[in-house]
């Protein structure tokens, strides 16, 4: 197997490079799971009688089944329903970033060329990347299991739970191995894998929403789409109830198959290139490109298109499921009522869907604004600021693109929900008006996160990427989707901008919180502008 010569050495190189990154991911996820499990353990120790109805709420309610499955009334199962989807997405991202970092990014930056000139086989980098990501997921599975066991959950269930999450990472290790061969850029490879993650989430959510609930409201039998998604396979292990191990085999099988495909692709392409040939382009720039705003739009238009397609897909599916909500009965209606304060079930469902879309759009805005940091660190900022473009104008170009892009994406989502939800319910015109309002009211909260990223990028450029993502994850967790059920104090929940978004269309839009969010946004953005004007640029040497 001379194609794999040098793999061991490259594994050591990758581990050396990732010696802080991977432990930070793994420990962060472990700590998060341990903390939330301990919290639910405490809550239900005080009110054990609530566990049964709480579990029934999330099982009966198709909207809550988007987040995952619970089987039977257990604290571990209930905690996982809250955490599993986030942790699974994080495990997938950790794996995708690791594999891309050691394959496609190494090629793009020319490192692969230096390695390939040594006694290193053609498949060694790919092999090393897959081994390192797989190892990280094995450690993750163990530590997540330990986190739940240590906070009082049964051992077998805890281990199955940890494995069910890490296996999503395992499957996406394979996905990233393939996308790294298809795309010729780091961004492209990560983007394709991210799209696969989105589809995987959608399939699992769809399968669970369309699933059948048993008479005791303690078990959901998922519809077939759940079985076509790695996230679905993890959920079907049903930790703390059935404790099945065999769905894990599906993820391992997927990793094996995808790795084999990646190896075949590596054997058929040139180093530094993707599977698609490089096309020629325009000899002259269009006038739309000739401004900082035009340039930023051009640089992220592919990503915007991808997010647009994704949000339209989600909007169509969740809109079509509106009809299901009207049939919801029992405990689940009360959960929705917390959104609206009245019995308007559909309004509450739309409000929660719109908030979810708002969080997704916030993630898009953060990826876009973090390019500010990459421009600086990779040096593309230098030629721009060498011309008659001021630093503030450069920030403004990004801010404009972020704002316009976010507005467009959230409106696309609202529009898609109306397309499938409106006809079924019989009054599309009023639904359109309600949902557009509900969509636009998400923007101030998104803008606050965007302004925070802007401030981080200008104040602490070196740490801005990690801090920004930590900020987004905390904002989502303290927000209305998860925050209230975590039993945290109100002031902590108030730290998340999403907490302050009016629950339109379930309740009327009030002006005060919107103005408050805009003020916070202005404050953070001003801090960013001031910092940007005063400091040295951290350009590459």
């Amino acid at each position, binding site marked *: 197997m001379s194609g794999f010569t040098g793999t061991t050495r490259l594994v050591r190189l990758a581990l050396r490079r990732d010696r802080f990154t991977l432990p930070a991911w793994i420990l962060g996820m472990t700590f998060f799971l341990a903390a939330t499990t301990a919290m639910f353990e405490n809550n239900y120790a005080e009110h054990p009688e609530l566990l049964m109805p709480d579990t029934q709420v999330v099982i009966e309610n198709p909207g809550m089944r988007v987040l995952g499955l619970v089987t039977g009334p257990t604290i571990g199962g209930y905690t996982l329903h809250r955490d599993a989807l986030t942790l699974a997405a994080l495990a997938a991202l950790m794996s995708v970033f690791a594999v891309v970092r050691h394959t496609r990014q190494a090629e793009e930056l020319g490192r692969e060329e230096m390695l390939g000139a040594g006694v290193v086989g053609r498949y060694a980098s790919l092999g090393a990347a897959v081994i390192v990501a797989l190892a990280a997921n094995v450690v993750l599975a163990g530590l997540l299991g330990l986190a739940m066991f240590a906070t009082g959950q049964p051992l077998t269930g805890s281990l199955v739970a940890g494995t069910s999450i890490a296996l999503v990472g395992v499957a996406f290790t394979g996905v990233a191995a393939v996308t790294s061969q298809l795309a010729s850029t780091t961004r492209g490879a990560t983007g394709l894998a991210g799209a696969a993650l989105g589809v995987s989430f959608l399939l699992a959510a769809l399968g669970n929403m369309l699933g059948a609930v048993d008479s005791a409201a303690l078990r959901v039998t998922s519809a077939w789409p759940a079985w076509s998604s790695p996230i679905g396979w993890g959920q079907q292990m049903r930790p703390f109830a059935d404790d099945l191990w065999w769905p894990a085999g599906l993820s391992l099988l997927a990793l094996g198959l995808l790795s084999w495909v990646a190896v075949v692709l590596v054997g058929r392409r040139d180093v530094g290139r993707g599977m698609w040939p490089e096309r020629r*382009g325009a000899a002259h720039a269009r006038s739309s490109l000739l401004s900082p705003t035009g340039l930023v739009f051009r640089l992220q238009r592919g990503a915007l298109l991808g997010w647009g397609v994704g949000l339209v897909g989600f909007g169509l599916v969740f809109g079509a499921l509106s009809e299901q909500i009207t049939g919801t009965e029992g405990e689940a209606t009360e959960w929705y009522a917390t959104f609206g304060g009245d019995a308007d079930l559909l309004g509450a469902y739309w409000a929660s869907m719109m908030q979810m879309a708002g969080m997704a759009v916030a993630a898009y805005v953060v990826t876009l604004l973090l390019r500010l940091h990459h421009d600086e660190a990779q*040096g593309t900022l230098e030629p721009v600021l060498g011309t*008659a473009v001021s630093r503030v104008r450069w920030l403004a170009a990004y801010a404009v693109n972020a704002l316009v892009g976010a507005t467009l994406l959230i409106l696309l989502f609202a529009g898609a929900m109306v397309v499938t939800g409106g006809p079924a319910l019989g009054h599309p015109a009023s639904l359109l008006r309600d949902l557009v309002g509900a969509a636009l009211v998400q923007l101030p909260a998104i803008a606050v996160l965007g302004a925070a990223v802007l401030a981080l990028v200008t104040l602490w450029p070196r740490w801005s990427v990690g801090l920004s993502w930590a900020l987004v994850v905390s904002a989502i967790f303290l927000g209305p989707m998860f925050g209230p059920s975590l039993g945290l104090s109100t002031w902590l929940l108030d730290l998340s901008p999403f907490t302050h978004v009016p629950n339109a269309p379930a309740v009327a839009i009030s002006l005060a919180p919107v103005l408050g969010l805009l003020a916070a946004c202005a404050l953070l953005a001003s801090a960013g502008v001031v910092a940007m004007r005063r400091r040295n640029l951290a350009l590459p040497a």
Partner: protein
Amino acid sequence: MRTAIAVSGLVKDFGPRTRALDHLDLQVETCEVHGFLGPNGAGKTTTIRVLLGLLRADDGHVDLLGGDPWRDAVALHRRLAYVPGEVNLWPNLTGGEVIDLLGELRGGIDPSRREELLERFQLDPTKKIRAYSKGNRQKVALVAAFSSDVELYLLDEPTSGLDPLMEAVFQDVVQELRTAGRSILLSSHILSEVEALCDRVTIIRAGRAAESGTFDELRHLTRTSVVVDTAKPLASVTRWTGVHDARVQDTHAQFSVDPGELNHVLEHLVDLEVRSMVTSPPTLEELFLRHYDEDISGAGAAAEVVRAR
């Protein structure tokens, strides 16, 4: 003659322990091509980034085209063009798009000039940046800069990836700009290029200006090499002041002489009855290697000599 760039006592620190520029002086007159030389890591790129207002000076005075590069960055950048040492551009744009974009952001370009330069540098503008070689990416930056008609060009090692043919094209273009009365700061390691193009040079070492002047002035600071045959034996040569690296074989000797001692050495030689003698001025290579090679105290001493003149 007005000055295009006047830098005095410029200090730039990166953190408490790293002093990148240590009281640097640099003066570029209008209408001159000024060579900016120095070993790797001497502070050339840092200086240029301060001149562009990308980095803030910690101390000293910086004047660029009569303005403050930090405060008036945007206004000044309309009047200059910059070619970075490491050309980092957007991989998914074409060369032509980048040239148009950078030109427009600077305040507009001359389309016919652009076409002419593309022709002369033999650059295909329809390729994506990621598909260009290092030399071709450099050409994109050069065409983008030269397509703008500005007062000052800041060029940071602009030819490090060019082939000899393109190097010649580059030299032609710079000569034309000088004739047209433009000012150019050219950081470079290529001595033939510096000698062909530059009116004056500044040599920077460890963040300080080690020497500055025309080539003739710099040559005067450097030893002359002498090969001589005499009637009487030359054994005493090694004891004369100002003589270095002497190799003596009876009545034949090779040595180098400090510029201030040349006259004394000639007096001694006349006493020994010179039969034939060849003196040659220092080559540029010798001149620069001396500066690139010396330890820091040596560079300081050389700077003292310049100031004393």
